[in-house]
């Protein structure tokens, strides 16, 4: 690759990093995700600055075409991140459902007055909602 290409990639990476830092400073990105994306950005910036490193790594892996090794790594990483998001999304979904159910119960009318069976003793049944 030409020097111009390396400068271009480096500039893109630095802009992305600045963007992430800005989001963190405005409290728009929790630090655990910031850490993830910043370290990924750092690795890309490193590879753009020292292109020889990528060539060496890909030949260790037995991959002749260096960008192939890069894309393999990138796709694997993104795949894992998306799986993680699926997990987190289902957890949020379960919690939201539970909150909705609890909200409905809290706002629901209490059972109509009837002679209550002694089974529901008042002391362990707070009814003030």
């Amino acid at each position, binding site marked *: 690759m030409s020097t111009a290409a390396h400068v271009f990639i480096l500039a893109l990476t630095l802009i992305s990093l600045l963007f992430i830092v800005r989001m963190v400073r405005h409290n728009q990105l929790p630090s655990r995700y910031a850490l993830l994306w910043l370290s990924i950005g750092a690795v890309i910036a490193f590879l753009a600055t020292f292109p020889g490193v990528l060539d060496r790594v890909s030949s260790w892996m037995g991959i002749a075409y260096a960008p192939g090794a890069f894309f393999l790594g990138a796709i694997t990483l993104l795949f894992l991140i998306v799986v993680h998001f699926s997990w987190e999304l289902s*957890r949020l979904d*379960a*919690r939201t*459902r*539970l909150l*909705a*159910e*609890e*909200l*409905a*119960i809290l*706002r*629901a*009318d*209490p*059972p*109509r007055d*009837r002679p*209550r*069976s*002694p*089974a*529901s003793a008042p002391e*362990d*049944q707070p009814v003030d909602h």
Partner: protein
Amino acid sequence: MTALAPLTLPVPQARPARTLVILPALNEEAALSAVLRELALSCPQLDVLVVDDGSTDGTADVARAEGVPVAVLPFNLGVGGALQTGFRYAIAHGYGRAIQFDADGQHDPSQVPALLAALDEGADLVIGSRFAAPEEGSEYDVGRMRGGAMGILRLAVRVLSGRSFSDTSSGFRAFSAPLLAFYAADYPNEYLGDTVEALLLACQAGFRVVEVPVTMRVRAAGTPSTQNVKLAYHYLRALLSLLSRAPVRRRERALRRTLR
């Protein structure tokens, strides 16, 4: 899954347990009023709760006009979520048993005592089955594709539970106090989850499940909740869910047996 602890202690066996009839309702304002009146006539001793599952019509108002308590969900959760809401309400207000009953009028309230009688005989889950009736002729037609898919699912249930059920998708059910607590903590919420998966969970956790023959009517109003396109997806998802749960649940069942 996040599970909340049950809110009360189990009701002592000797005392008559109060029973809550739970009606999950989505846009059922047309049928609900008649269903509630028939229920009140037929089973005046039972308390009723309507769970409004994010209806856009006057379902909640109709229920309130009939003097029935309503729990209004802020958005649609599906039958599973609505039912779980009912279970949690039942436990929070000290009910010992619950009935699941359709708001669209396809269930006959005069058959509720039969389900409760089965609970009294020691069952934890009683399923009102359309197909367990003595006279085989009165079959409820569900269509060929759906019938086939139901058959595959029934086979999976038979293999995984070691038992044969005639109607795994019935929404006319009765629940004992221990099963209420079990379901209040965690209940499958996707389509088919609230029927087939819930049934299998109960079997595999060691609860006693029985079927009682009932007859069902053609729904009074409203539309069936599924389109043919989504059907294949839902059956596949349910099948996968049943299969993936099996090993874990078997371990839990073993644990339950040890604790008994």
